[in-house]
């Protein structure tokens, strides 16, 4: 994110300062044209400045209509057809991005006041002192560059934050809105997206009265691409899982589709398990995800044995394997993404698995919704105000017995 932002800002800067600045000089004295070109010849030759000329206000407006590059107008006041004050009024109303400098007779305070009130940026007096005019031009251009830079940065920031919002909305739209529970089990889950969304997700898949599928995943990378990949993954998994198939087959199915033509090499670590609350059996397959924890009553915490499978989207045709776990009444399964364990505290230290396990050991008798919020509290306490760099996801499922 800081990279993108810096790039965006430097591009904006380059754009704001690139190329010659075009100035329109409006005066009915034809001699002025030659004087200006002579006085500024070096800067014209260096391609810093370009001058256009008009002889009254109306001609000036016509030039401005066909030339969007003019960023500054220097205008006399007394001219035929349309005078300088009328021109200022029109400029002020229709072209707020153009800065104008008025040329008036020395001591003509009335006209100068009117001009300033109509939005003139500055004024110079007649007879024109070209050194003074040059200083005024430079002052005006500096001001213009700053304004453009600010506008441009704002637009870039708005575009970036819109993209962040899109990713966040996509992610929020697919998260479960309710947490399944019966007399035999209950569940809870929460996900806190990072500022730049990281592509975490979790899901509960209803599989009849006794069974429930639990998924948790983390897509590589961040932002809209990660969110899109995550949505594809979640939809594919759901479409297969709802048919009640085995977790290893579900992951193989999702993997083959994600790996097909995956030029970007994005991948997702995905854990999927099916819990049968009738028997207490939990069948699962782990596609490269952090091993979930089994928390026994009494506070014993163990990591679920890995199935040694690879993250999804990488190896088409990979055969996934499955493990089986027998839960006892009161056992809790806790699933998480690395936003929990890689949360950074003071001095870049990571929260780590040991701290997580130590906390989980004290939550053996805590309700699932309290478990997830206690873990989140621990992450926040540990981070002590450090920016959250990755999505934080945790899911809990407790077997209440048959």
């Amino acid at each position, binding site marked *: 994110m800081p990279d993108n932002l810096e790039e965006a800002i430097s591009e904006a800067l380059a754009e704001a300062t690139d190329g010659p600045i075009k100035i329109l000089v409006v005066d009915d004295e034809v001699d002025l044209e030659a004087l200006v070109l002579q006085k500024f010849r070096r800067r014209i030759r260096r391609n810093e400045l370009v001058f256009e000329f008009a002889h009254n206000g109306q001609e000036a407006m016509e030039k401005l209509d066909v030339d969007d590059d003019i960023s500054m107008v220097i205008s006399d006041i007394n001219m035929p057809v349309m005078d300088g004050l009328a021109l200022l009024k029109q400029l002020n109303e229709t072209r707020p991005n153009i800065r104008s400098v008025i040329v008036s007779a020395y001591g003509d305070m009335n006209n100068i006041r009117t001009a300033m009130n109509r939005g003139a940026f500055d004024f110079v007096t007649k007879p024109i002192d070209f050194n003074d005019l040059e200083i005024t031009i430079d002052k005006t251009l500096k001001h213009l560059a700053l304004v453009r830079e600010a506008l441009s940065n704002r637009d870039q920031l708005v575009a970036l934050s819109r993209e962040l919002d899109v990713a966040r909305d996509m992610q929020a739209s697919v998260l479960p809105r309710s947490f399944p529970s019966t007399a035999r089990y209950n569940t809870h889950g929460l996900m806190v997206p990072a500022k730049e969304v990281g592509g975490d997700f979790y899901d509960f898949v209803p599989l009849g009265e006794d069974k429930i599928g639990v998924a948790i995943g983390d897509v590589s*990378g961040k932002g809209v691409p990660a969110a899109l990949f995550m949505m594809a993954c979640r939809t594919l998994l759901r479409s297969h899982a709802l048919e009640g198939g085995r977790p290893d087959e579900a992951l193989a199915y999702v993997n083959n589709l994600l790996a097909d033509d995956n030029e970007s090499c994005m991948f997702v670590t995905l854990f999927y398990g099916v819990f049968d609350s009738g028997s207490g059996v939990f069948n699962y397959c782990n596609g490269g995800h952090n091993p979930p924890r089994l928390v026994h009553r009494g506070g014993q915490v163990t990591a679920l044995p890995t199935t040694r499978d690879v993250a999804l989207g990488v190896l088409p045709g990979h055969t996934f394997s499955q493990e089986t776990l027998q839960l006892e009444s009161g056992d809790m399964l806790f699933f998480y993404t690395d936003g929990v364990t890689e949360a950074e505290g003071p001095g870049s230290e990571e929260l780590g698995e040991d701290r997580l396990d130590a906390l989980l050991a004290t939550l053996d008798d805590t309700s699932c919704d309290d478990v997830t919020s206690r873990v989140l509290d621990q992450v926040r306490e540990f981070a002590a105000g450090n920016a959250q*760099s990755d999505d934080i996801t945790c899911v809990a499922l407790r077997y209440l017995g048959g």
Partner: protein
Amino acid sequence: MATGSVLDLTTETEGDTTVVIPAGRIDGSTASPFQESLLKLIEGGKGSLVVDFENIEYISSAGLRVLLLAAKQLQAGGRKIVLCAMRDHIAEVFKISGFSEILAIHPTRQDAIDAG
């Protein structure tokens, strides 16, 4: 959002093998310059690519993706990517994600060059 993360990258050659020694963190903010550097080296070289992890403190999923991409590019030309000298917590990332099953990882740079 790690602030001020930089990825220094030094390169050496051993015959046809290019050895890349990045230092620091390969995360969301350094992954894309890392990707650019690797792809450029792959394009400019003809043998295997060894990535020495001795000075890498952290690698995120964005960094893993870059390695996969590099592996794919190299494979397309019948070449190899070999990783080496990972600290334990880095090796753990490769193990958990299963990438240690797909990417060749060796304990030392010399082993990696020999395998390349």
